[in-house]
């Protein structure tokens, strides 16, 4: 019998509120060290924490998208410990009344759906960031007091693939709910799996892995841990409960510390923060501007006929998907092809985003509709792309100015077809004697004659009618 793998994952995510959770210092990444700080963040004696309402709103949104039951009456607790990253000697967190309980995230592994159950989600403050040197450690308190949510799964993940899928889905949900940036490389999302293996119903000895720098590395860390634990058990040795860290270079885990008798954090209710009662009204208000979640968007894209590979490209680029949300009433296939193709090429080339261009919503809508109705060809679109992006002119004006309006005039098209047919009677004869490819050659000549300005589908239809008459 093979070993059963059991994984539970703790994820910390920084909420992207403007200010910190208990102080009005700015909560942002990348500032000069120790500039976004004040007496509360530094734990000065006599200071009192002031709860940031925005944190509650963001956490409520996270609860909603993770299907968690919201705790209406909750409070904060003190987790006591001595460590230089937190001079108050306690972290304000939620131990007894986490804001969310019993939720799930649904994943899809090779077509099989599975609910990854979430035990709880609580709110807490981040500690200062430490950089360790040989002789000293350096502390930056910009991070101290940044609001975090910690999301804890039940031990219900049974492979590295499931773990990676769960984290990708979790990241996507929190990102789309505008709750967190979820940038693992900047530390705004931190994943800590605990891994055990067992041949019986009883769980094996748990090993926690910290310091993992990417979602795919979580998968690799779990794979490595499973192999390492198997080897130890096969040798007849006993596993120890440990905390290990992932080493990106060697793709292995390295021992950090052996847990002794378990931590004694002496949790007790935080006396400096009044208890919180979340009313239905407050919850409703917090959820008021919750954007549509990625799975709903995927459904719409699929219904519109966008290719699956393009659907995932759009979902992976939230800004792009948010942009498309404003145009759900027009041809989404054309709209997404433009955005993924020529428009994004234009933006990348110039290193700008749509908001930096002159492409207004009206203009984009008009453009897509014109392409949809075949009023302009792809060739013409490419010719006027720069004008669309760089001038205030609307599409019609651009077309008029350049003399590029597509010819939809039937009599004009008829005249052009007649000219092409009489000028190329040899090709017409080839067609009549059974060479069907000659029709394509004639169509090419027709488009050339019309200088790319005639509506290709109606022209083709007319050409075929004349050839076959």
């Amino acid at each position: 019998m093979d070993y059963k793998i059991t994984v539970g994952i703790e994820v910390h995510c920084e909420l992207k509120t403007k200010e910190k959770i208990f102080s009005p210092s700015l909560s942002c990444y990348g500032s000069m060290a120790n500039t976004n700080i004040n007496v509360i963040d530094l734990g000065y004696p006599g200071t009192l924490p002031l709860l940031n309402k925005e944190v509650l709103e963001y956490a409520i949104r996270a609860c909603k998208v993770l299907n968690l039951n919201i705790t209406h009456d909750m409070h904060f607790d003190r987790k006591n410990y001595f460590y230089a990253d937190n001079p108050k000697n306690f972290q304000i967190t939620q131990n007894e009344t986490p804001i969310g309980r019993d939720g799930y995230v649904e994943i899809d592994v090779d077509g099989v759906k599975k609910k990854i159950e979430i035990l709880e989600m609580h709110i807490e403050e981040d500690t200062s960031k430490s950089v360790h040197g040989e002789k000293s450690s350096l502390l930056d308190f910009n991070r101290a007091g940044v609001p975090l949510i910690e999301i804890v799964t039940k031990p219900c993940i049974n492979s590295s693939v499931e773990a990676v899928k769960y984290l990708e889905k979790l990241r996507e949900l929190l990102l789309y709910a505008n709750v967190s940036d979820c940038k693992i490389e900047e530390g705004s999302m931190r994943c800590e799996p605990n891994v055990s293996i067992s041949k019986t119903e009883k769980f094996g000895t748990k090993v926690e892995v910290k310091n993992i720098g990417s979602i795919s590395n979580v998968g690799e860390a779990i794979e490595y841990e499973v192999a390492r634990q198997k080897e130890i058990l096969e040798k007849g040795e006993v596993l120890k409960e440990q905390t290990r860290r992932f080493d990106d270079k060697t793709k292995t885990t390295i021992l950090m510390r052996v847990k002794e008798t378990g931590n004694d954090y002496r949790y007790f209710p935080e006396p400096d923060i009044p208890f919180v009662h979340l009313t239905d009204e407050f919850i409703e208000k917090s959820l008021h501007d919750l954007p549509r979640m990625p799975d709903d968007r995927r459904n719409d894209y699929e219904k519109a006929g966008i290719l699956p590979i393009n659907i995932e490209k759009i979902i992976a680029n939230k800004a792009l998907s948010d942009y498309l949300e404003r145009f759900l009433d027009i041809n989404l296939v054309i709209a997404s092809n433009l955005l993924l193709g020529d428009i994004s090429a234009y933006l990348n080339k110039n290193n700008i985003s749509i908001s930096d261009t002159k492409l207004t919503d009206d203009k984009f809508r008009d453009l897509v509709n014109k392409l949809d109705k075949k009023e302009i060809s792809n060739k013409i679109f490419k010719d006027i792309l720069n004008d669309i992006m760089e001038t205030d002119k609307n599409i019609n004006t651009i077309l008029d100015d350049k003399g590029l309006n597509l010819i939809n005039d039937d009599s004009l098209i008829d005249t052009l077809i007649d000219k092409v047919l009489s000028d190329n009677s040899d090709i017409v004869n080839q067609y009549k004697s059974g060479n069907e490819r000659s029709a394509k050659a004639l169509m090419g000549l027709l488009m050339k004659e019309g200088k790319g300005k005639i509506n290709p589908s109606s022209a083709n239809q007319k050409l075929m009618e004349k050839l076959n008459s």
Partner: protein
Amino acid sequence: MLSKEEVMHVAHLARIEIDEEELEKYQRDLKILFDEIDKIKDLDDFDEDRMFSPCENAFDLDRRNVEVDKDNLLLNVPKKKGNFIEVPVMINE
């Protein structure tokens, strides 16, 4: 009386060193203190929901008035390196 191990554990949590004489004193003193705390459990129908705070939902409080005088903030820091606060190396991480 608390056991010596219990007193030593409490001392460790508080990061204080105590000598043999103090150890015996705390074995007695802490017992008195813990007994007082235990009395709470003897209350009729005691449950944690009874815990209350004098006010609720104080998250609308004005957070603007907090001191943000950055020049004075780090005056108490014993050692700095650039903008960072320098502390003895932390090995437990």
